């Protein structure tokens, strides 16, 4: 076993995932979309509003560290919507073995709830919501609503 690395804010994990460079204040939303609550049994550390250096600029960020869990693509897609600059670090035996950015996919299926109460995707029908990601925002392929603001609070 390696020595505990220096300078970490929170204790190291052996195997799991570190979601780094989360927009400051958004860690709790990340937990929500990962389905992590006080009732679930992951070993978890969260840091919010910590100082970080990105591109030579000092700023603030959140970090979420989850043991014994690697993320599914849909989970990474949800994180991308919350925080497009987040990085996903896969930790194995205390070491970062893989680091990747997140990317909002061109199409979101079952990831965001349509804001239009009259949309058929909000009725009790056997379909998933379906959005095309455009410059203007998220475009519902059923009702044509375009979600432009506060997208993260509509993530399912």
């Amino acid at each position, binding site marked *: 076993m390696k020595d505990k690395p220096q300078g970490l804010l929170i204790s190291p994990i052996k195997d799991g995932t570190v979601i780094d460079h989360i927009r400051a204040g958004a860690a709790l939303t990340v937990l929500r979309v990962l389905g992590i609550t006080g009732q679930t049994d992951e070993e978890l550390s969260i840091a919010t509003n910590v100082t970080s250096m990105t591109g030579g600029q000092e700023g603030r960020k959140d970090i979420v560290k989850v043991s014994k869990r690697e993320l599914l693509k849909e989970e990474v897609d949800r994180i991308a919507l919350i925080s497009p600059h987040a990085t996903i670090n896969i930790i194995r035996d205390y070491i970062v073995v893989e680091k990747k950015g997140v990317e909002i996919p061109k199409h979101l299926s079952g990831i965001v709830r349509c804001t*239009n109460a*009259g*949309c*058929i*995707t909000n*009725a*009790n*029908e*056997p*379909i998933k919501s379906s959005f095309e990601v455009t410059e*203007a925002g998220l475009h*519902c*392929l*059923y*009702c*044509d*609503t*375009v979600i*432009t603001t506060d997208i993260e609070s509509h993530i399912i």
Partner: protein
Amino acid sequence: MKHIISIKDFGREEIDSLLARAGAIDAAPQIRQTLAGKQVALLFFEPSTRTRMSFASAVSRLGGTTITVDSVEGSSISKGETLADTVRVVSSYVDAIVLRHPKEGAARLASEFASVPVINAGDGAGQHPSQTLLDLYTIRQSMPLEGIHIGLLGDLRYGRTAHSLAYALSNYDVTLHTIAPPTLELPESLVAELHRRGCTVQEHEDITSLIPELDVIYATRIQRERFPDAASYYNVGESYRITPEILEGHKDGMIVLHPLPRAGEIDPRVDAMPCARYFEQARNGVPVRMAMLEEVF
């Protein structure tokens, strides 16, 4: 299998060819037999007598028959069946489904579960492609669509017929003039989309000075429930009413359209003027819907 769900699914060539087909049907009004032996379900989850009658007329003029479901009460729907299931089952009885539904996107959903063509006859505040196509058809009876100046008047915020018509016209090089009461303007997102599609959109406060420029006036219904009180509704109604006096100085060949039913938006004295085309427009629903039916069969 072809469905007709949204005017946005139509390119310019498809619009042109459908309107040309409607024109051919109109020119030879004898019974056509394109739907002989075919049954069409008119599945109306929301009352709309005119649309339903005009689709029924279109089917029968093509030699087909209709089965109508227009009462939600007592049907499986009130027992909580999903639209998806209803459509799957109805598909096995008929050769096509014409659907009217209060939820936006219902027709898209139906097309995903139906095993026969689906035609959208209006889904809530969403799409109503047959209305848009008959609006275009009526304009084209009087003038080419290319290059016209059209004034959209009334409730442009909630008026879906105006939205869809504006979108469809952005396939042509038109100038859209909008005249709407405060808070009932065309949604900004739609204006942005129209701009992206190369359309010129000009907002105006008052129609009077605009009249000599317009080729088409498209008036839409202004609903009482959009206003806080009767007085402000009355005031808006007064200043947005089309009258023979307002129309003075209009271009030769200018036409006035309205999706009907009208409330007070058009003075009945306009009815006798040659520019009044709204009853013709309603009549055009039949050949246009016949063309749509032929398109999916």
